[in-house]
């Protein structure tokens, strides 16, 4: 199968044939955006200082370092996803307000994000977490930094990336949610296993 590479700005029709479980890549711009930035937009109603229409966000707090001899220029050292579920509370509204098309993070997201992805056409994808050097190696340069008052992990760092991935699609635009499907199976096996385990644990007699 041909390698699927999305380019920003992403259009609704680019996402139509992509299904949960597919592997895709991203070329263009992606902005790190996590807990406090979501809260500021949704709860504090502060306009996001980055235009995300057709864009991509990364639930991530990177390690960056200043580039010596260049004022206000930074290099991406290590960047990888953080737990996406922390942003679940805000994500549907976030998709609606920003027009973001690609959300990259770690683990699954819930019902609100599923609805947001279906209604407003967006994807949630997993980048293999803990692989921060693989991700940083796809970053050509950091082109923008906003809300730096939030400190290194929470600043909105916008990077220019080439074939950033692998991105495993966890929620598609058709209402499919890979992790929610998998969780049903996991819980069934867990209950069965517990019955077996319990047979060997009668230590209190």
């Amino acid at each position, binding site marked *: 199968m041909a390698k699927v590479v999305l380019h920003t700005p992403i259009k609704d029709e680019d996402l139509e044939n992509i299904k949960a479980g597919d592997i895709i890549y991203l070329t263009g711009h992606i902005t790190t955006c996590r807990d406090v930035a979501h809260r500021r937009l949704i709860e504090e109603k502060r306009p996001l200082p980055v235009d995300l229409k057709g864009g991509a966000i990364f639930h991530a707090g990177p390690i960056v370092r200043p580039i010596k001899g260049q004022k206000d220029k930074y290099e991406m*050292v290590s960047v990888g996803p953080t737990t996406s579920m922390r942003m679940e509370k805000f994500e549907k509204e976030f998709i609606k307000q920003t027009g973001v098309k690609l959300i990259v993070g770690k683990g699954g997201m819930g019902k609100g994000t599923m609805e947001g992805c279906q209604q407003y056409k967006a994807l949630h994808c997993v980048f293999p977490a*803990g692989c921060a050097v693989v991700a940083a190696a796809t970053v050509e340069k950091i082109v923008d930094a906003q809300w730096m008052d939030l400190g290194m992990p929470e600043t909105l760092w916008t990077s220019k990336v080439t074939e950033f991935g692998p991105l495993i699609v966890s929620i598609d635009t058709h209402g499919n949610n890979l992790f929610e499907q998998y969780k049903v199976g996991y819980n069934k096996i867990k209950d069965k296993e517990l019955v077996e385990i319990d047979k060997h644990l009668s230590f209190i007699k």
Partner: protein
Amino acid sequence: MDKQAQVAKMTDIMAKFVGYSSKVLPDDVKAKLQELAAKETQPMAKLLYETYARNMKLAKELDRPSCQDTGVLQFFVKCGTDFPLLGEVEKLLKEAVKIATVNTPLRHNSVETFDEYNTGTNVGKGTPTVFWEIVPDNDQCDIYTYMAGGGCTLPGQAMVLMPGEGYEGVAKFVMDRMTSYGLNACPPLLVGVGVATSVETAALLSKKALMRPIGSHNPNPRAASMEKLLEDGINAIGLGPQGLRGDSSVMGVNIENTARHPSAIGVAVNVGCWNHRRGHIIFDKDLSYTITTHKEAKL
């Protein structure tokens, strides 16, 4: 060497060791990941293990932290009463973290609570955290370093069960956490379980359990059998790397325990992610040191 020079020397070694442990996995974790990757049969899981391996190679080559979340530093210190820097260790560890944060570099992971601002230095009130054990008539200082990342900190939970719930209750407590939070915590996980009386005793044991090497066993035969039962049970769930299905879920389950109050079973669970950045270094009284977790380490 006067005391000031001794402090400077140990600070320098610890700063380098902390930085090193952010870039290179301990030998036991490396070996276990290789073993799990070799026996994996599912294509998505195989791709993920390959990405893990590529990341570790790149981290070493490019000399960068292998995960961007370099955690809040935690130190488990077992120090002899005759170790010459007993009174200086805690302060110098904080200094070492500050230095490592700039030199490695590490992420700034200390947000002052209530005032809610990032200190920008990776240290703050009570961070790094130092847990102490004092050993009488001994002149060594034995230190475990651990980078507690956010993702693998989130599943942490402790509670006190009624004895009627028994060890079956302990098993359910651990297993439930695996399918709710565990799959987001970067499996294959190392699972630490504490069994004691109250939440704080169980919780500390569950974290200490993560310092034990993968493949080691609790000396109590029943506890060891429960480690195996849980390991097999969680593996059967098939979380796979990233929770995206696979033949394994964990690198191991380590249980640590103490005696308990007759009316209570305190239980806690803590997990380490696949990128389990644990280090172990032992100083003698002359500040010569041995690193047990990373055979190839050169500081």
